[in-house]
């Protein structure tokens, strides 16, 4: 039952189609491999156990900084002791308890490394791009394209930013060589209405390209980031690869947009490479950001800009930071508001399809089905809309989308398993809890999931 009916208004004409599409996708979703079902069960188990979840996330975050199993075990024990005892599964309860716990510390510490690795394998495709080669190839054969994300520590010095730039350059080279031999795949629709689509797709973080992010002086970080972004754009152009700039917290947005606007307007980048930015629907002014980008010189190039629409992963960070200084949060207060904004911007992006390449990134079945249905209703071809999911969270969804002949791209992090996982935990998981940790989508009944956002 859609809310339009409840409200007494006419039902959205595409509502029925959204349901059909969602059912098709849901039916096509494969059963996850055992390893993923295991971590899925563990993560679902944590949903209702806030303190335990916080304790384990904090542990994953701190683990790489620990020296040996004893220290890891001591950290784990200390975090667990801050969670209510009844939330702890039995083995962890023993570790947290007195007087037995301290004796178990080395054992607990030794057991955690494989556990983190097991979980990390799910989210991280490999230590680096070469280590991820078979993961990427298998996905390609299933009909899933990739965008690679190089995990690493935050950059605080110029040298660290240079190193990140060099890793990106090397990844572009490697991926080009790797994917050149891949077979053509009709499902991936290697061209859309605008022309050929790059096989190599790299997502880069502005915060890794400059440590000089100053919300009150965006020009400072922008010029520094641009200096490191320029060689990346050149390489991507020369290799025919796509370069996508991820969006992070809102204080970095102006720096990113002004860097991108200035760079892509440069003569040498008029005809390439293919580039993309991100619009975060959880921001109350997301619509203005989209219009600003559309009206900027970035959209006047010969290659259309890809706009990835996401909900946003820093909701708690943004809310807390605004709360501390007495500002109205830049993010919507409820998930319903975000979802509504997401659908509105989805429609706007699809309408702009002759000028930009829309990429709809979500794990929410309703959000994705809505995008597909709306695109269809306007007579759009399947090749002209891209759907994106995250490795580890949208794996079965990606397979279902590919199987139902949709163009899908998987955001694929690579990096050191333990350190990378810590980084991922900090940047991804802990920030998305209030707005609905992504896994809970799967446990909710389909009908509920498909309700239009209110």
């Amino acid at each position, binding site marked *: 039952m859609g809310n339009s009916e409840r409200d007494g208004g006419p039902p959205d004409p595409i509502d029925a189609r959204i349901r059909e599409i969602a059912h098709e996708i849901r039916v096509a979703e494969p059963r996850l491999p055992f390893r993923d079902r295991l971590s899925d069960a563990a993560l679902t188990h944590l949903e209702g156990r806030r303190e335990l979840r916080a304790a384990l996330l904090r542990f994953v975050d701190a683990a790489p900084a*620990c020296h040996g199993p004893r220290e890891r075990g001591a*950290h784990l024990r200390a975090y667990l002791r801050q969670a209510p005892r009844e939330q702890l599964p039995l083995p962890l309860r023993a570790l947290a308890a007195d007087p037995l716990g301290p004796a178990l510390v080395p054992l607990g510490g030794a057991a955690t490394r494989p556990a983190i690795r097991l979980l990390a394998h799910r989210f991280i495709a490999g230590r680096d791009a070469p280590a991820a080669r078979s993961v990427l190839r298998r996905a390609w054969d299933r009909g899933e394209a990739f965008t690679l994300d190089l995990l690493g*520590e935050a950059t605080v010095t110029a040298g*660290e930013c240079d190193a990140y730039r060099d890793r990106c350059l090397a990844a572009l080279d490697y991926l080009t060589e790797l994917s050149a031999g891949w077979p053509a795949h009709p499902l991936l629709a290697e061209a859309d209405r605008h022309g050929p689509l790059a096989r190599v797709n790299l997502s880069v973080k502005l915060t890794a390209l400059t440590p000089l992010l100053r919300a*009150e002086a965006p020009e*400072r970080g922008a010029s520094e980031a641009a200096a490191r972004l320029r060689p990346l754009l050149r390489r991507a152009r020369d290799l025919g690869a796509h370069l996508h700039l991820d969006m992070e917290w809102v204080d970095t947005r102006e720096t990113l947009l002004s860097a991108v606007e200035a760079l892509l307007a440069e003569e040498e980048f008029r005809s390439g490479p293919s580039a993309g930015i991100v619009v975060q629907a959880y921001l109350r002014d997301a619509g203005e950001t989209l219009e600003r980008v559309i009206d900027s010189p970035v959209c006047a190039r010969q290659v259309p800009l890809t706009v990835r629409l996401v909900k946003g992963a820093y909701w708690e960070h943004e809310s807390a930071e605004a709360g501390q*200084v007495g*500002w109205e949060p830049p993010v919507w207060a409820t998930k319903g508001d975000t979802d509504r904004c997401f659908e509105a911007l989805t429609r706007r992006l699809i309408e702009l399809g002759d000028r930009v390449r829309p990429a709809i990134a979500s794990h929410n079945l309703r959000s994705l089905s809505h995008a597909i249905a709306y695109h269809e209703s306007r007579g759009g071809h399947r090749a002209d809309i891209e759907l994106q999911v995250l490795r580890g969270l949208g794996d079965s969804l990606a397979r279902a989308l590919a199987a139902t002949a949709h163009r899908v791209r998987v955001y694929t992090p690579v990096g050191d398993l333990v350190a990378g996982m810590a980084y991922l935990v900090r940047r991804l998981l802990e920030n998305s809890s209030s707005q609905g940790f992504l896994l809970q989508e799967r446990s909710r009944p389909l009908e509920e999931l498909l309700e239009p956002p209110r």
Partner: protein
Amino acid sequence: MSGFRNHPLLELRRADEREELRAAMAGLDRELPLRVPVVVSGRRTGGEGQTSIDPCAPERIVARWRAATEEEIGRALAAAEASAWPRTAIAERAAALERTAGLLDRDRRRLAALIVREAGKPWAESDAEVCEAIDFLRLYAEAARELDEDLLQAPGERNELRLVPRGPAAVISPWNFPLSIPAGMVSAALVMGSPVVFKPAEQTPATGAAFVEALLGSGVPTDALHLLPGDAAVGRRLVGAPEVATIAFTGSLAVGLEIHRRAYERTEGVHYLKRIVAELGGKNCVIVDSDADLDETVPEIVRSAYGYAGQKCSAAARLLAHRRIHARLCERLAGAVELLRVGPAEDFTTDVPALIDADAVTKVRGYAGLCQGRELARADAPTGGQYFVPTLAGDLPEDSPVLREEVFGPLLTVEAVRDLDEAVRRIRSLPQALTGGIFSRHPEHVERLVRELTAGNLYVNRHITGAVVGRQPFGGNGLSGTGARTGSRRYLWRFTDDQVICENTLRHGLELS
């Protein structure tokens, strides 16, 4: 905490907000140089001879002023002592503070610009300072109305504790928070019923004067607030004055100790045992545990040590890093320090502004000289003026004064420690204990350090500056101060005397209610 809320900062990430501030600065610049009067009983008498300057462009004169004369000080003290302000209802006194807060809010951009100019403080921190001043006024106004303590009652008697004014207060304030620190001290004294004689810092009299005008414009009677600009001589005169009951001082340890000595020097004609409320700086240490998250630790330390060129009493001065993380921390921190941009406070891209005056440059240069050959990183700085190169130094000899004395400049030292116990030992050997920092992800280590460190304000896994009114009441232990915490309700008790009334309510066996 009932209705009190911290005043919102300006959203400087918005370009239009930054533009408004630039316009406010242009407006202020057209008025320069300002005239700072001596204000005694509402009479403003100007003068020349002294100037305050823009630390980032010393040739620019911000204000002209002269020191209050002996005769003016005498008249101010006499008027303060005779003032009817202590007999004004507390609600009325509180209301005057709240009106003042409103005026500061109305003029917030101009005031921020004035702080940028006269104290050489970057915009974000200047704006935060205006908010802090507003917060002090509002919190103290609210707290004063409710300040009370319930006494035990027994049959046949009624016990009551009243807070009674103490007589005039002398407020002597520093230049590094030229608005908010005097706002805190002056408003606490006023709201508890003490008339105030106020000496702003020599370097920032115009900011102090702007605050006095806001109070007078909000209905604080002219005999209850006097502005006495001046140098150390004026301060000495006020501290020794028999009319003064309370001395509120924020500044250096040396001056703080001198105040304690001088306050009781004179005994004849003294009406009060002077109460001294002093905040005296510190040698603030930060411990970095072996499991610290350097991605976050490094930027937070940089902010703590080099923000406002290290000229905050809360600034980080000494870093003690677990030996296992020491090398990596030094390497990353050095890289971050090299990126600092030194420049004028009014430039939004500036990280580190100039030092307050030439004396400060000489002093910091002296300490930096002791670090020669041991620098791990130096940022670029414009030559000349009062700029000083942000410096990170390591491996200083244990007896180096740089490790014990307050530098008050952009100089941070880092040393390796064998374990946390050694870090605690070294920190506890310092006489001052104002702020401190702990970077650790081990909850038990954090708890242990919190128990063993004596700093008045401890920060865990974050920068150690920027205490917020009502959220992080601020003040030091040890030789860092007399223990009062600004920005808390309890602070007000220091500015008042208790009077206990016990009334017999039994009459001929009949209890009156």
